[in-house]
């Protein structure tokens, strides 16, 4: 009996390890290619005979490349914009979620349904008027144009509301009896208890913005405002044949999400699973 289950476990391990290996192959190829020469990439050797770390320095410092692109700047832009979007999204979403989850007011459920309804609206529907709005406000080609429209998330409100609904109401009732204001209750009682949800939302918002291409592509005109995805697109268009440089840039673009993932995995899993619960 025990050996049968042990054999089954082994079979599961073999299958899972195989699937994992196949799924990791593109990453492994990318990593190895980023240390090769173009000739070696096109050859059949798996490992680079010598590790060409200069591919990485070239992407940043080659004078020819630096004329057209500035990856140091792209790193800064991507992280700067994504960090602001994350901060604003979390704060505005948490406040709105509190109003939906904890306060009682006429029309609450109608307004919430309106929020939920817009989750169905494709991004391209709002993109065109948003672009026209930025033209009118003269915010095209600016950090504000990249940050502000992306900072109000109906999904964030929905996710945090789900989290807040799981917090026992006895806690805020006790605080209310002690004479705490709504803001105090929100800040001192609800927000700390919503922390796992907030972290999950922060990861989603950061990564979603870090990877976004459509909006930065239509908003940004100047080279110095390009985020990493836009910079990568132009780099690929110009230096598409230099596979090794492209792969070095790809590795570097993938590093921040990778680190974030390793650090925040626990919260993410919870966030995804709670976001799916209909409420």
């Amino acid at each position, binding site marked *: 009996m025990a050996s049968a289950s042990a054999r089954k476990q082994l079979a599961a391990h073999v299958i899972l390890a195989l699937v994992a290996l196949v799924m990791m192959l*593109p990453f492994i190829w990318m990593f190895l290619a980023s240390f090769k020469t173009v000739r070696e990439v096109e050859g059949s050797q798996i490992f680079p005979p010598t590790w060409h770390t200069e591919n990485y320095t070239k992407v940043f410092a080659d004078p020819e490349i630096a004329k057209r692109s500035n990856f140091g700047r792209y790193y800064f832009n991507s992280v700067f914009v994504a960090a602001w979007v994350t901060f604003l999204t979390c704060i505005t979403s948490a406040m709105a979620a509190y109003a939906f989850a904890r306060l009682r007011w006429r029309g609450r459920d109608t307004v919430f349904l309106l929020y939920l309804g817009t989750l169905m609206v494709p991004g391209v529907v709002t993109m065109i008027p948003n672009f026209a709005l930025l033209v009118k406000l003269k915010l095209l080609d600016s950090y504000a144009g990249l940050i502000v429209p992306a900072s*109000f998330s109906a999904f964030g409100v929905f996710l945090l509301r789900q989290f807040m609904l799981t917090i026992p109401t006895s806690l805020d009732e006790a605080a209310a009896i002690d004479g705490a204001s709504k803001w105090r209750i929100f800040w001192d009682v609800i927000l700390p208890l919503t922390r796992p949800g907030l972290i999950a939302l922060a990861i989603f918002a950061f990564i979603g913005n870090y990877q976004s291409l459509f909006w930065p592509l239509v908003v940004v005109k100047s080279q110095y405002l390009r985020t990493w995805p836009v910079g990568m697109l132009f780099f690929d268009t110009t230096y598409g044949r230099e596979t090794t440089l492209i792969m070095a840039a790809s590795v570097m673009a993938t590093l921040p999400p990778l680190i974030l993932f390793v650090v925040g995995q626990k919260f993410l899993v919870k966030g995804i699973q709670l976001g799916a619960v209909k409420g």
Partner: protein
Amino acid sequence: MTRTRHSSDLLPALGFLLPNFLGFLLFTAGPVVFSFGASFTNWDLQHSVPFAFIGADNFRQLFGSEEFWVYLINTVYLMIGLPFAIAGSLALALMLSQKLRGMTVYRTLFYLPTFTYGVALMVLWKKLYSPEFGPINVSLGAITRALHLPFEPPKWLQSADNLMGMVPQHVAFHRQYVGLGAREALINMSVWVALGGNNMLLYLAALTNVPQELYEAAEIDGANKWKQFWHVTWPQLAPTTFFIIVISTIFGLQGGFEIARIMTEGGPAGTTTTLAYYIYIKAFQEFQMGYASAIAWVLFAMIFAITLMNWRFGSRAVNE
């Protein structure tokens, strides 16, 4: 007594809601209304023609053009990987839920493509599919040579061929176009991205919620593993499957922009142009904002209809 206390929440509620609600009005709700209006105009950012309301002309032109139907079919065709990805996610979740040692390591590795998916990985896949030097065709070539198979590796992203033999730029089929091409390459990539992603996590969570007694009862009735899956697990997972299908369809229909922009420019011969990419071209390269808004609203209408249908049909299927 309680009534009065509750109604007094309106003012603080306004305060809490205001920052998000302003943004919501300005960047979501307002634009939705605005774009609906715009879809009935000839709005053009280059002002080549005087601005005017033109009724349903945009929609008439759209439905009358073969282009639109071709791109709609492209969009749907690129989603045929979905059932496979969902079935794969379920299979992985079933294996992971057996409380294996190292389960979190597998889960982390499986989730990696979803989490790191972006321009960098699309550029990577473009290289993987390179017809001459890409590792996919190099491996395929080595295998076919070793086995002496009369088989040319496909040209992937550079080929308009597809499994159904759809003729590029037309709603028609021809034998000549049967094969593996850009669309199959993209479908394969999207399965790779989705397989161990959010759907697998949702299934994992749902599996832990299946009451253990149900399996014990089934075992007493003499049901084997296969029967237990179909009579216990699968019905218990129905709400999750339903949710996954709805969400995947919604995202699938509005997808394809990044892939087209980075990997194929919508080609070859328009075979990977989805509705989302078509809207981008019309709006931000040809600046026909009115016409682009009309396409966007047709897309919205389809998503809305499918969601409603899923709801009707799905809630019945789930409750049975």
